[in-house]
């Protein structure tokens, strides 16, 4: 009988498998959708790569099983993202189980399973650390503490995940509405871009990335405050100081300090810009614009600014007229030449 290493069958490892399994199931669903609709792969413009695109998702599923067993959840998440991209490219609907609004559901499922796999990352580390060794000490505490602990481990991350999904959906929806307000041709271009799957996926990823970055920025100092030790703090502080010290020494060796001359020059330029603005627009207008920074209302444009804006609009209208005429001429020419 083959002995299975204990790091694959202990409690942490089993928890990790359970948390990472939804990601593999979702990849299999995407792969089934692509395999059951081969004409989509051809019509997606893949050309010679269409057969590869049809079978690539199954290769990804195989690699994902390897990543699962090798305790590499980051590779698993990357493979899940690749599988989702291939499904999005081939316009497959099976990733959403054929329901209406399937693409949005696929995005939500990808985000939830990614977070689930990343939560499992903690347990995979525990499984690797235990790696064949028996636990010497294990404390459980009262039931209330266990419930709170389980809540922090599972429920809180899932709640945060769902909140992130709702927030990302809300922000992407607001962006879609705002593109209609932009001036032409930006409005048409951005609306068309957001209607494509690529555009929607990239915007969703960008918004999700920005939200996660902001959340991390806020949570990191709080978690550091409660967990950092004296030695870790010294090591972090030295890392930051060494990095800055190296840069400053390198810069000082290349060119010595210019003293206060650059600061004085910058102040003079700033004063010059403000003086020019006051002379051109008037003191009251400059004051109103600066005060509007402290309020929520857009500044009222002065007469000079309105005149400049009208002149710019007029030039844009004239130029647009010339472009239209040129386009009409070309259309007529093509109609004559090619019917």
């Amino acid at each position, binding site marked *: 009988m083959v002995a299975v290493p204990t790091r694959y069958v202990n409690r942490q490892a089993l928890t990790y498998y359970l948390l990472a399994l939804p990601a593999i199931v979702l990849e299999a669903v995407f792969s089934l959708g692509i395999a059951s609709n081969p004409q989509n792969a051809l019509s997606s413009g893949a050309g010679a790569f269409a057969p590869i695109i049809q079978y690539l998702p199954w290769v990804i599923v195989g690699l994902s099983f390897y990543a699962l067993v090798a305790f590499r959840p980051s590779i698993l998440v990357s493979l899940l993202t690749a599988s989702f991209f291939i499904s999005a490219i081939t316009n497959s609907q099976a990733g959403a189980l054929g329901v209406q609004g399937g693409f949005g559901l696929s995005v939500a499922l990808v985000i939830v399973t990614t977070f689930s796999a990343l939560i499992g990352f903690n347990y995979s580390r525990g499984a690797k650390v235990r790696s064949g060794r028996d636990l010497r000490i294990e404390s459980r505490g009262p039931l209330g503490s266990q419930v709170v602990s389980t809540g922090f481990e599972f429920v809180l991350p899932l709640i945060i995940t769902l909140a992130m999904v709702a927030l990302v959906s809300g922000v992407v929806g607001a962006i879609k509405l*705002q593109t209609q307000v932009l001036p032409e041709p930006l409005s048409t271009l951005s609306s068309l871009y957001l209607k494509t799957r690529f555009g929607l996926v990239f915007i969703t990823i960008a918004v999700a990335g920005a939200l996660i970055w902001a959340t991390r920025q806020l949570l990191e100092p709080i978690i550091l405050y409660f967990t950092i030790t004296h030695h870790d703090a*010294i090591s972090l502080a030295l890392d930051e100081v060494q990095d800055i010290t190296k840069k400053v020494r390198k810069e000082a060796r290349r060119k010595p300090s210019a003293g206060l001359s650059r600061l004085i020059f910058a102040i003079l330029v700033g004063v010059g810009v403000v003086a020019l603005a006051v002379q051109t627009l008037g003191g009251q207008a400059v004051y109103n614009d600066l005060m509007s920074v402290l309020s929520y209302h857009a500044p009222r444009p002065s007469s000079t600014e309105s005149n400049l804006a009208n002149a710019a609009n007029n030039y844009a209208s004239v130029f647009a007229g010339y472009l239209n005429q040129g386009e009409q001429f070309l259309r007529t020419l093509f109609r004559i030449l090619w019917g």
Partner: protein
Amino acid sequence: MASSQRFAGISLWAGVALIAVSVYFFLASVSLISPPAVAVVAGLLSAVIGFVMLSAGTALIRTYVIARAVEQNPEKK
């Protein structure tokens, strides 16, 4: 030691102030995008300024936390 603690305290409050200013810029961004202003570019610029302020503020608070942990007696933690 007293002067380094005072400096670390300034770092914390400066970070909190920067985060408060960043929240203001995020609110201003939403306000500029909403009717009747509907200034999308100004709103985006305000959001970018908010993110920069947030990054600077949290970096200062992180530095304060690390400095405080370094100043502490190693036997306390």
